[in-house]
């Protein structure tokens, strides 16, 4: 240590430049204002587009629903261009929800398991390529999945579905009338959808699992938790909102999926629990398959069904937000 230290003011003066004046004549910097306008404008545009879509759907739907001689919501048949015009979305809504539900039930456990394995079990050298592979699967176009489903999966699934019908046929879901071919069935459609939404659910949940704070994990480890118990105590509770969001993202994709369903399902307008029998239909597949043949009213009727799909997707998302928000006070940092 040296004995002759310069006064502290001199030392400070060499370190810091003269302070800038506090008043610049403006209270908001131009950069901040430009950014606020740009980002605000972008989000406004997004809202406007959604509103315009809703308005368009509504505008085109009203004439069709007016012309409908039966109840639009409870009718299964779809004859908009015949006289009298009879059509309704009951069978479409049923098929859409049932196939998406099958897909979710099959995909979520596998996706969460895959995500857990990649994020917390796999050795690092394996985790990286695996994660990359899952991301790659998410990018495969749906028509590829549809073709794969039609030419590979459907023939492969005959055996399994025969077995299900033989052994679990007493269960309403798996009962079949005589002579089911086990080909263009609701279960097959659900399985194809499951495969399609699996990568996106897995990719999103994996990212959430990777963000589990280290102190939560260490808190569990220090209590003597095994690997599985660490996941149960720290990882899954933290990841729960993420799993729900990811599932809803997948559900959204499943609800709106068109090509794969149009290829795999033999479409008709029935409402049935029997997922091993051919038949059923969805909003999106119906629109894709019918659009080419539809006359004026038929087109409007299809758009009306599109409006219902739009509303269903919206409701699904709102419900998901509600589920996530319900336990918010338990969800994160100190309140």
């Amino acid at each position, binding site marked *: 240590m040296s004995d002759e230290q310069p006064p502290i003011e001199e030392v400070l003066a060499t370190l810091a430049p003269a302070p800038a004046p506090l008043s610049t004549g403006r209270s908001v910097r131009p950069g901040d204002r430009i950014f606020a306008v740009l980002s605000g404008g972008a989000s406004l545009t997004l809202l406007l587009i959604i509103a315009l879509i809703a308005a368009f759907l509504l505008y085109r739907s009203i004439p069709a629903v007016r012309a409908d001689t039966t109840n639009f919501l409870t009718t299964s048949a779809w004859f908009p261009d015949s006289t009298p015009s009879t059509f309704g979305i009951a069978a479409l809504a049923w098929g859409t929800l049932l196939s998406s539900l099958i897909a979710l039930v099959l995909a979520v456990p596998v996706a969460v398991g895959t995500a857990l394995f990649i994020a917390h079990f796999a050795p690092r050298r394996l985790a990286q390529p695996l994660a990359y592979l899952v991301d790659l699967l998410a990018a495969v176009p749906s028509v590829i999945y549809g073709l794969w489903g039609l030419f590979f999966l459907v023939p492969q699934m005959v055996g399994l579905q025969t077995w299900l019908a033989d052994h679990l046929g007493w269960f309403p879901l798996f009962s079949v009338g005589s002579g089911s071919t086990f080909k263009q069935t609701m279960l097959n459609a659900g399985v194809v959808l499951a495969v399609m939404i699996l990568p996106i659910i897995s990719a999103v949940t994996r990212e959430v699992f990777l963000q589990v704070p280290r102190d939560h994990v*260490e808190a569990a480890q*220090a*209590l*003597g938790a095994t690997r599985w118990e660490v996941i149960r105590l720290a990882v899954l509770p933290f990841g729960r909102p993420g799993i729900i969001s990811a599932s809803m993202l997948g559900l959204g994709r499943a609800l709106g999926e068109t090509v794969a369903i149009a290829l795999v399902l033999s479409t008709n307008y029935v409402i049935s629990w029997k997922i091993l029998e051919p038949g059923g239909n969805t909003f999106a597949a119906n629109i894709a398959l019918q659009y080419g043949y539809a006359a004026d009213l038929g087109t409007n009727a299809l758009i009306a069904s599109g409006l219902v799909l739009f509303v269903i997707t919206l409701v699904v998302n709102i419900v998901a937000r509600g589920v996530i928000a319900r336990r918010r006070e338990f969800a994160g*940092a100190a309140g």
Partner: protein
Amino acid sequence: MAKSIDVSDLSIYYGKFCAVQGVSLTIEPRSVTAFIGPSGCGKSSVLRTLNRMHEVVPGAWSSGKVLLDGEDIYSPSVDPVNVRRAIGMVFQKPNPFPTMSIYDNVAAGLKLQGRRPRRELDEIVERSLRAANLWEEVKDRLERPGAGLSGGQQQRLCIARAIAVEPEVLLMDEPCSALDPISTLAIEDLIEQLKEHYTIVIVTHNMQQAARVSDRTGFFNLAGVGQPGRLIEIDNTQRIFSNPAEKATEDYISGRFG
């Protein structure tokens, strides 16, 4: 309850880097041992080897022996999960499980050990919260989230969680460094009480704290950046702070460091 720890020739590595070299020390049951020393000297690493928590960091490993009442906790036949059940730990930053209520936080470790009747759980939760001097403050809101408590309360909740499973030893890694002076005092009083039942090892940056709460103090230091940390000396706290054997210790505790 309350066992002794014998460490001999312990070295700690992160990959090829040797962070701590050749530590040997003995910790008596029902005593408080404080580890002090500058940042990076390896005192936290040593603490974390005592319940095999350091090895959860990828690439971390150690050599040497750590005996818990004569049993080698690094023997190949020992499951680290069991070691951590016997040797509890409290961290620098309070880390209650954010998705759990106060009650469930305290019961978390117990539930890992198997199902118990609700009444028994209730009793242990109350006893642990009382032992952590938190019961009076939270008894009316046990179902509220643990993360909603103040920092000091959260840390006492973490202590309650750690002692609910009745560990042999309690390790504390700078338990007060994120707390205000009043909460710090509350934790220090608590350490004084817990000493009657548990063997406690505490890492602290606060030398007054070490002097106040501990019976024995170990001073760690490192020769320079990139050099491994070493245990310079360990002795009765009073002796360390009044008449240490090593000059480095005296320099450090009197603030004339380096």
